[in-house]
């Protein structure tokens, strides 16, 4: 018998309390996940139309140079934006994205790479290891208004347009299902607008390949200038929402597993407690029987 009966009972109580907390966290994560998904759905018409609009206007702007579209070949002064979470207890969510981002950053040049970190976990990790964290944001939650996204997006485009960075990459976590999320690193600026491929075909044909003749007000080039920053903002919004959904999904799964394991531990401990109780009873019984037999032998 490893533990006394009282010790085992105390342990059961502790594990039960932990289980209550993990199952509450799971429910909170589920509610937050639903909230993020609602926002994704609510924002979908805008995102879709924005993409279409860039595709429609793009072919009419052959040859215009916009700072966000022009690549700067040769010069390599990259900036990486890492989107992680503020809190732990969400399985390997933060670890995965940080590890993926770090590998990428180290390939680009390690501590000389300029970083923008979103989320406390990533900020702390890269700060502590001496990386060049220029700006960091935290407390971006499921209820943050779009204006906060704007601030972040503007910081990212600012890096590029001011010439501090010649490329901006983003590391975020793609949301696949509640159970599955995939860390992803990709180039963000200069942007290749969705209309770009169509543009190449159109210019070789000599005329924009559009079956509809649009009236542009103001001219297409100027429209695109106004469109692009908004397109960028919407992309950033998408990255943030996906990361948030992934974090909540990962937390939900992790807490669900924790609740299940707590259940297993409780049933193991209950068995141990029952065995300990039974052992004491058997011992006491043996003593009584032995005593009675000893008395009978004397008499």
């Amino acid at each position, binding site marked *: 018998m490893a533990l006394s009966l009282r010790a085992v009972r105390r342990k059961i109580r502790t594990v039960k309390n932990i289980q209550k907390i993990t199952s509450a966290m799971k429910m909170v994560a589920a509610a937050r996940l639903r909230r993020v998904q609602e926002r994704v759905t609510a*924002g979908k*018409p805008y995102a879709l139309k924005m993409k279409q609009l860039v595709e*429609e206007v793009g072919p009419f702007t052959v040859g215009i140079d916009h700072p966000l579209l022009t690549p700067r070949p040769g010069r390599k002064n990259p900036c990486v934006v890492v989107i992680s979470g503020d809190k732990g207890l969400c399985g390997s969510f933060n670890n995965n994205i940080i590890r993926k981002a770090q590998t990428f950053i180290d390939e680009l040049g390690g501590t000389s790479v300029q970083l923008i970190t979103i989320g406390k976990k990533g900020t702390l990790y890269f700060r502590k290891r001496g990386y060049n964290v220029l700006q960091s944001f935290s407390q971006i939650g499921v209820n943050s208004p779009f204006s906060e996204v704007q601030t972040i997006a503007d910081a990212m485009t600012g890096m590029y347009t001011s010439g501090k960075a010649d490329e901006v990459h983003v590391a975020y976590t793609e949301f696949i299902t509640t159970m599955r999320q995939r860390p992803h690193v990709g180039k963000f600026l200069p942007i290749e607008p969705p209309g770009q491929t169509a543009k190449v075909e159109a210019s070789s044909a000599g005329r924009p390949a559009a079956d509809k003749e649009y009236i542009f007000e103001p001219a297409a080039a100027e429209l695109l200038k106004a*469109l692009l920053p*908004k397109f960028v903002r919407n992309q950033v919004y998408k990255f943030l929402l996906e990361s948030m959904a992934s974090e909540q999904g990962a937390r939900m799964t992790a807490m669900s597993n924790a609740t299940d394991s707590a259940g297993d531990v409780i049933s193991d401990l209950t068995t141990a407690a029952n065995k300990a109780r039974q052992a004491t009873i058997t011992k006491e019984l043996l003593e009584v029987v032995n005593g009675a037999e000893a008395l009978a032998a004397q008499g």
Partner: protein
Amino acid sequence: MADASFHIEVVTPERLIYSGQAVSVTAPGRLGYFGILAHHLPLVAELGLGELTIRQADGQLARMALLGGFFEVSGNNAIVLADGGELAPEIDLNRAKVAADRARKALEDLDDPNVDRELMRAALTRAETRLKVAHHAGR
């Protein structure tokens, strides 16, 4: 009659504000207000800050405050991609009034170097647009 109407949607990054059949729409173009009727030629226009008015198929007017964006018409469908906006009944009058007063007060002090005048002027026009739209809607 149904022939003279078209479908219009107003969306922001965060939500769908309005969707319905319209007879005519007046929109705050960046270069000035313009009107759209059914069967308009395909159009893409940039919008400024201002009031969007939709005459619905039932003859009622729907008004909203828009904070800039884009307007697209194609195939008898209109879509407004707004940076932000509210329908007239949704406008928070008190908040708009407070914002307008605060901006006005900040702009009055010509010497204060801490005031970002650009920002304050923008805040003032935003608040005034909201108040104007609410006023037009009879609130």
